[in-house]
């Protein structure tokens, strides 16, 4: 049955039209769908693919929007209309409901008590907008990047002096008074406060805290440069002070890449003075220095979550370096996988949408692998010259959220398709044994980030098998059951595609290390 829906003189943006087209083709009972403006050629294409009606040919003009489908019956067409209206109206409803005053003054006229602004404007204007908010006594989460270090210093100095938060720039996640901002997960309320200079690192820790049955009081982002000497950790200081004075916060967790030495010392001293049990995860940092301040050092993001939860429950924290599935099962699986590789398969490829997760995986594996080539290398000599266009080299880990991959396209947590393509490309490399990938869900992320990745993994494994090889794909999902995408559903999609799914980035990394160790024994 061929059916047609026409909206006269109606214009919708290309993104909406693409989305409608994609969604209609997924509906049960719809064998073909064409969406577009009623130009002669689009009508001709409709005829070619068998979805043209006399009305489309004779009464629809180039300025009319049409949906033409071949479907099983009236019931299926009703579903098409419902889905189309849903997608078109969803946007209209969103607009109506979310009236956004065009200026800060306009927003303050609507509600003079506003106390938090999330700023996402081109970097060169971000500092001005942020300063305007601070001038009005409004805390700032600055999502924008490309803000100069001088601007950041000036904004944070002003904010610090006025006891206002200036989270960012390039601050990807925060949860303030249980309100998630930007990329954040649905995490239970609890008594663990987090202050962090790391986006996906924070998501990993807060999500695992939720998975362990505990919750967070506040999650304060500082922006990745806060602990650099130029900035001096101004927001980390303010964040620590806020958590110290927050009666709901019982345990503090501090997350960052290793800061400059003098800044680290200052932050650790301040953390010690809060009087609250504090877990410090300086990813790859000096454990002894942290412990010398009476603080609890974490060996991974996952370990930070476990230790924070233990402290929150009044238990003694211990290093967590095991497997949720159990040591024996992990070892047996690793051994079984290692035995399947063909001769010459020996390298790991890590393809990440979260920069901190990529960094953590490299730090956990570098002593074993020796060299890991990357666009965010641990050692300068291991930098890939052309990470996007070029080929992987031996052990290669890529952060797809790095500038090299995001020019002219959304962040890979929003559009993970480029990473999926890379999975398929590297699967053709006869020396590639293992592909590791993260999958970050939650607010702000793609509605189903596992979809593309699962399809790529399935195809990649099938192609490798046809070539007489075995490809091991290991994934970890960062998120919670309460996230819109659902942790378990996301994990199941990846497992169904043939991936080994571990509950954390650290466990995924440890598992791959086991596989490689067994592979060396085999070889």
């Amino acid at each position, binding site marked *: 049955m061929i059916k047609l829906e026409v909206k006269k003189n109606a*214009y919708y943006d290309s993104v909406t039209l693409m989305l409608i087209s994609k969604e209609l083709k997924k509906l049960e009972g719809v064998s073909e769908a064409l*969406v577009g*403006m009623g*130009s002669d*050629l689009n009508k001709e294409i409709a005829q070619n693919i068998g979805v043209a009606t006399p009305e489309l040919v004779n009464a629809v003009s180039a300025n009319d929007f049409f949906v033409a489908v071949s479907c099983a019956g009236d019931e299926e067409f009703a579903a098409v209309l419902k889905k189309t209206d849903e997608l078109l109206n969803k946007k209209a409803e969103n607009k109506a409901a979310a009236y956004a005053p*065009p200026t800060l003054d306009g927003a303050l006229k609507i509600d003079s008590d506003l106390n938090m602004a999330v700023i996402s404007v081109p970097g060169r204007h971000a500092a001005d907008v942020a300063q305007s908010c601070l001038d009005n006594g409004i805390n700032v989460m600055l999502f924008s990047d490309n803000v100069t270090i001088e601007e950041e210093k000036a904004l944070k100095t002003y904010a610090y002096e006025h006891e206002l938060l200036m989270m960012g720039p390039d601050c990807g996640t925060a949860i303030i008074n249980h309100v998630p901002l930007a990329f954040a997960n649905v995490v239970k309320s609890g008594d663990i406060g987090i202050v962090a200079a790391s986006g996906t690192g924070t998501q990993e820790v807060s999500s695992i805290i939720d998975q362990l049955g505990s919750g967070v009081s506040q999650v304060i982002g500082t922006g990745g440069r806060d602990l650099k000497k130029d900035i001096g950790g101004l927001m980390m200081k303010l964040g620590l002070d806020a958590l110290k004075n927050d009666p709901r916060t019982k345990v503090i967790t501090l997350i960052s890449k290793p800061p400059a030495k003098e800044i680290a010392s200052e932050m650790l001293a301040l953390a010690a003075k809060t009087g609250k049990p504090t877990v410090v995860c300086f990813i790859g940092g000096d454990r002894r220095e942290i412990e010398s301040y009476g603080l609890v050092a974490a060996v991974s993001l996952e370990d930070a979550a476990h230790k924070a939860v233990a402290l929150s429950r009044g238990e003694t924290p211990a290093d967590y370096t095991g497997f949720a599935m159990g040591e024996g099962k992990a070892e047996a699986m690793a051994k079984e996988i290692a035995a399947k590789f063909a001769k010459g398969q020996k390298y790991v490829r890590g393809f990440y949408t979260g920069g901190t997760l990529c960094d953590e995986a490299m730090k956990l594996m570098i002593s074993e692998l020796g060299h890991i080539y990357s666009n965010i290398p641990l050692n300068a000599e291991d930098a890939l010259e052309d990470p996007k266009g070029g080929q992987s080299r031996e052990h290669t880990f890529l952060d797809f959220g790095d500038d090299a991959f995001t020019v*002219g396209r959304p962040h890979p947590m929003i559009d993970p398709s480029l990473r999926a393509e890379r999975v398929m490309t590297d699967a053709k490399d006869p020396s590639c044994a293992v592909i590791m990938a993260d999958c970050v869900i939650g607010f702000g992320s793609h509605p189903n980030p596992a979809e593309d990745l699962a399809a790529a993994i399935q195809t990649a494994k099938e192609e490798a098998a046809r070539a007489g090889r075995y490809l091991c794909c290991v994934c970890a999902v960062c998120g919670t059951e309460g996230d819109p995408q659902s942790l378990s559903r996301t994990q199941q999609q990846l497992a169904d595609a043939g991936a080994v799914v571990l509950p954390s980035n650290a466990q995924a990394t440890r598992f791959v290390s086991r596989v490689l160790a067994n592979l060396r024994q085999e070889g």
Partner: protein
Amino acid sequence: MYAIAVCQRLLTLSQQQPHSGTVHSVFDHAVNLELGQDGLAGLIAENKALTPFAVSVRTNAPFSQTGVRAGMAACLQEGNLTIPEAGIFLDLASAKPVDLGIDSIALGNVAEAKAVLARLIIDSLRDADAKNSLAPLVTGAEENTYTRFLASRVKHLCSMVSARDWDKAAQAAAGCAGCGMGLTPSSDDLLTGYFLTLHLLFRAGNQPEASAHIHTMAQAAAAKTNRISGTFLLQSGNSLANAALYDLFESTFSAFNDPQARSAICRVRAIGSTSGADMLTGVVLALGQNMGESEP
């Protein structure tokens, strides 16, 4: 909301005589105005490439959330653009004027530009959306519904242009227009890139009379598509490019500047869903033709 940069043509128009009209359509990043000209005029968000007869506007919210609606009265006069009902008053005269006419681009080593630019674009298009864009026409990626339909038509257009059979070329251009899913159907974007590149190549070949023929082809194509897409086609026929394409041409045809060219390609790619990729596909198709421009 205020004006940051303005197409020189729109500024000049605003300083001549009053033009009254209505808001034609409103999107998150653009507002189109019907002011009685051949094509539409417009407002465009600051982070998008400035288009001909448009003003680049700094605003803290998408246009669709600022109260402006289709059908509202709009006026262009004395260097100002106003939409009173939506409280929009833009002082065009205080904005940076931008010449988007590619006829002003000085031509350098065109043969080198042709060779290098085509390679750069094709490299960039290899990761374009091959299922929905027209990039497979030049990258060799697997054909899709639209490329399958258009391939022979585009080939015919190129043949007629090469043969300088302008009547058939105009018919062929019309025969390519309006094909694709987007608001600006993909083939229109392709033609926009194609026509603009032809302008440069014919000028390099010292054949300025061809400009009128390109204009005619663009008119024929514009008649076959919707008003918004047709506007961009008409503008390309008049040698007017969006700012990203203009920068691309300037960074290659004038004196080749590799980083600027790559940056401009990225900015063109960022236009629309597949529009940028489709425009670049049109550029590559034109670059593959010899228009009599001098060889090095």
